[in-house]
């Protein structure tokens, strides 16, 4: 089925407006808020702290633990039941995998660093927003990182390859494919790739290219947010 024009008038490779801010939660070691379109994620980092049970400890390095959660009122339809679901557990796990390649926790053997991400409002792309926020919060917390991590979804809506699908596009009657991607911007390495739907190899390649291009813009937003914390105070 043909998808002629995007519902919200964006170009096919255009992302929704983004904004970011760090240091929003005073109690946390590091924190950040990342907004893309109507999706809002907040992240807080706590630790490193003692990890129990002990068998989970890594004697050579700290362990990263992510906790993804949608607030009960943040879903598109019904109330989201509080507590962990299979979905939130899986997303938490893929978040860890997408952030770990840049993160160095060797200074903190046997300990754990917790990243809590809460979604306040959602309009698709929540795991990507969560990763962007988590990456910022970890940098804000002062951990050693090889780079930030940028995440965005690309995919197919009807017959068109698009960047940054919103909920309405995900629900497109003519079929949609959603590919959340996380990328280390300096090297272009992909740390998260999932796929929902049916797509040709050619279109997949175009999606990944779209995603890599989009990450440059995300990095810019993240960079500005981290620097703003210290330049604003300068005034």
């Amino acid at each position, binding site marked *: 089925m043909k998808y002629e024009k995007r519902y919200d008038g964006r170009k096919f490779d255009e992302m929704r407006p983004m904004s970011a801010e760090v240091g929003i939660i005073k109690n946390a070691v*590091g924190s950040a808020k990342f907004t893309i379109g109507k999706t809002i994620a907040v992240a807080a980092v706590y630790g490193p702290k*003692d990890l129990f049970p002990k068998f989970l400890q890594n004697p050579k390095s700290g362990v990263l633990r992510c906790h993804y959660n949608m607030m009960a009122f943040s879903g598109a339809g019904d109330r989201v039941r509080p507590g962990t679901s299979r979905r939130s557990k899986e997303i938490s796990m893929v978040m860890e995998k997408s952030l770990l390649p840049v993160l160095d926790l060797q*200074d903190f053997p046997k300990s754990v660093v917790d990243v809590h991400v809460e979604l306040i409002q959602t309009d698709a792309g929540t795991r990507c927003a969560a990763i962007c926020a988590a990456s910022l919060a970890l940098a804000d917390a002062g951990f050693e990182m090889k780079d930030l991590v940028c995440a965005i979804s690309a995919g197919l809506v009807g017959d068109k390859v698009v960047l940054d699908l919103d909920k309405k596009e995900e629900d497109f009657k003519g079929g949609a494919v959603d590919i959340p991607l996380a990328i280390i911007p*300096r090297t272009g390495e992909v740390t998260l790739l999932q796929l929902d739907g049916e797509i040709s190899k050619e279109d997949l390649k175009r999606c990944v290219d779209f995603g890599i291009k989009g990450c440059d813009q995300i990095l810019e937003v993240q960079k500005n947010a981290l620097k703003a914390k*210290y330049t604003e*105070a300068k005034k």
Partner: protein
Amino acid sequence: MSKLLVEAKAVVIPGEILAEGMDHLPGKGAFREGEKVIASRVGLVYVNGSIINIVPLSGRYIPKKDDTVIGYVRDMTYSSWFINIGYAYDASLSLKDASSSYIERGASLSDFFAVADAILTRITNVTKDNNIDLTMVGPGLRKLKGGKIIEITPAKVPRLVGKQGSMISMIKDMTGCSVFAGQNGRIWIKGKTPEAEKIATDAVFLVEEKAHIRGLTDHMKGFLEEKCKSLKVEKKVSINKETKK
């Protein structure tokens, strides 16, 4: 030819390329990747000859030998105390290091330091396995009585102390408060009046907030002069006493 891509004292973020070429070397908070020197944490750029260091602006405390820190007694065994020093793992203070005078084996440890007591202590050893040893033997090391403890980012403690302790001395002299800064970011403040303590507290937080600005000392001097006006005359007397010491 090596090229430096950032200005001195610029704020950089992880992944930011600091220099290209082999003449520059990555120092603290930086690493090399091929021809490039790259920042690995949020911080300020300090170039020392060919070495590029990133001085962190945030981050948790990492214990080092000879650091003086403020700890809380968390637990004890028959021969040692476990002390929370704001790190992932507790440090330990053994009986032999707890006092310069002899403590008999089998003595009640809580007579010296009880759970929840705050102590000013020094790290004597840190092993790779996170075993951290403390001592109470040394000038100024003691149980903290009275006053309050506030916490700032450990990365900002050097700024609070200042060159040869200039910043912290200024806060002490002008407010008449005792102020001790632990390297772990815990600051103990005790003064003659709550008003003086409040000014000292606000001053410490202000240093934390503005640690990276130029002319911080002058800024702080102005702040303290303005605030200390409200302190009563009697306190000025006590300030004089303090400085006479």
